[in-house]
């Protein structure tokens, strides 16, 4: 499962709770750094799929600053929920401020209409086709596919990140896979 130079991370919920406790009780920056290592890439990817490129790094950093503020001021026991909730809020804030235009122009890249997409798909590499298909999915599906197959999170981790039940995630994931498959066959 591991790719060279690109490790995937797993940390038990128990350990995460312990680290959060240390952050709350002692403002322990080292403990926070461990949590950061686990979540940084996930959160960045989550933000990456939803915001224009120039603000991705800034927003991801902001997520961890605000989470630190929050986790030092009050006791939190679910790190995933904390980070993803803050990320969602910041993303929502961004669109409240800047409107939807940016979303359109960046998200669908240089393609203007569906016809264009279909035409250009033929000449593209596999990965680019895949990216386009993924971006066409509705955001709920996109999120679970991303978390499961790109971030390598297990069902319960996804559940705590999204605030849904494990069963709910299983069903959504099943539907998302089906939607992905349909979209991919269609674009071929």
């Amino acid at each position, binding site marked *: 499962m591991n790719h060279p130079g690109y490790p995937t991370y797993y940390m038990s919920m128990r350990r995460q709770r312990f680290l959060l406790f240390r952050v709350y009780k002692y403002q322990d920056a080292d403990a926070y750094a461990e949590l950061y290592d686990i979540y940084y890439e996930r959160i*960045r990817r989550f933000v990456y799929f939803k915001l224009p490129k120039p603000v991705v790094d800034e927003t991801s950093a902001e997520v961890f600053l605000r989470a630190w503020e*929050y986790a030092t001021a009050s006791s939190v026991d679910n790190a995933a929920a904390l980070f993803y909730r803050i990320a969602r809020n910041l993303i929502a804030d961004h669109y409240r401020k800047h409107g939807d235009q940016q979303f359109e122009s960046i998200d669908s890249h240089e393609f203007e209409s569906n016809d264009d997409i279909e035409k250009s798909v033929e000449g593209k590499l596999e990965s680019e086709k895949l990216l386009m298909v993924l971006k066409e999915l509705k955001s709920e599906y996109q999120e679970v596919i991303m978390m499961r197959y790109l971030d390598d999170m297990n069902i319960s981790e996804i559940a705590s990140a999204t605030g849904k039940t494990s069963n709910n995630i299983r069903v959504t994931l099943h539907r998302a896979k089906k939607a992905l498959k349909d979209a991919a066959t269609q674009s071929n």
Partner: protein
Amino acid sequence: MSREILRQLKEQRANTDFGAVSLVDRESQKQRVMRAIGVSQETTKVSPLDPVWRTVEQIRIAFVSLPAATVTAMLVLVFGGSVGMVGAANSLPGDTLYSVKVATEKARLRIASQERKVLLRTEFAQNRLEEAAKLAENPDRVAQAMAGYEIQVKEAKRELESFKQAEPEAAARVAAEFDTKLDELSTLVNGQVQKENPSKAVDQAIESTKDVSKTVVEVIVDAKDKEVESGVEGQVINDSIRETYRRRSNASFSRQNVNLQRIAIIEAWYVERDLSLPTTLAGIRKQVEDVSDPLFESAALIARGGYRTAFELVDQVELDLISIEAQIAAEEIEVINRQNQEVKEEEEASKTEDNYEEETTEGDIISPDEE
């Protein structure tokens, strides 16, 4: 087909088009965030004007450049002098050496940088408090020490304000550090000194400490405003804001916790005795719990940049807590009075019981089971 797509998807994990980030970028981002939450600010600066080091340096120079007799004379002067200083350092208001202590402090201020002056003032203020604590049995001298404390705190405030005019950014950083010291001072004043010497001088000292603590916030927030106006925003002031805010809101949260525990103890006392809880208690508990709301709101404000209002909210919470604590104290006194009453009644009861036992014999007592 589906499996094939998922396989392809997994292969894109390290692809930056799919949101991956290079290890180098990840590390630099991490450094940035960690710096922002104040990790690298921990390194302590060594003052170049450390008196011990200066003395050593002087002796070293003396040995290489002066004739032996002069060296001996200097050693006597240096060590003799330092003995005098040590004696003076432990002196109290009214002692002969006390004036030496005050003179030394003034000398240290004269050579200190503007930045250092503010912090030196807090050190001297703490000296005054320690003196006051040692002089507990002599009210006049305590008043003298407390007046000295007030002067130091007010001077620190003045120093900080003039520093703000000159270098807002550095002033904000010093203000944050100053706030930590101030925190220690007010704990000392409120706890130790107030309990031992409740007097007008102490009340005044508490007031001026609070006043300075407001100045700290002003200095930091004003610096931030100026920075925003100038359009160039740095990390230093943000760090100062975060640090100061964190410490203050944490203090309120922990006070809230302590108060909840006090209420729980009172409640337990009533429950143990099967008494109904006083109706006021629920109200007080609600008030204590509600303190969280403005604190959370202030946290949200800080995140959004509403620093001034956020600090005002925390200040308001501090005031609210004072009045709530007074109410809790009243309830505690009520419990203590009842407890005393109880003990007295028990004593009386045991007395009458003794009398009762003398009058009756064991055979007279029949338990319902035996019937």
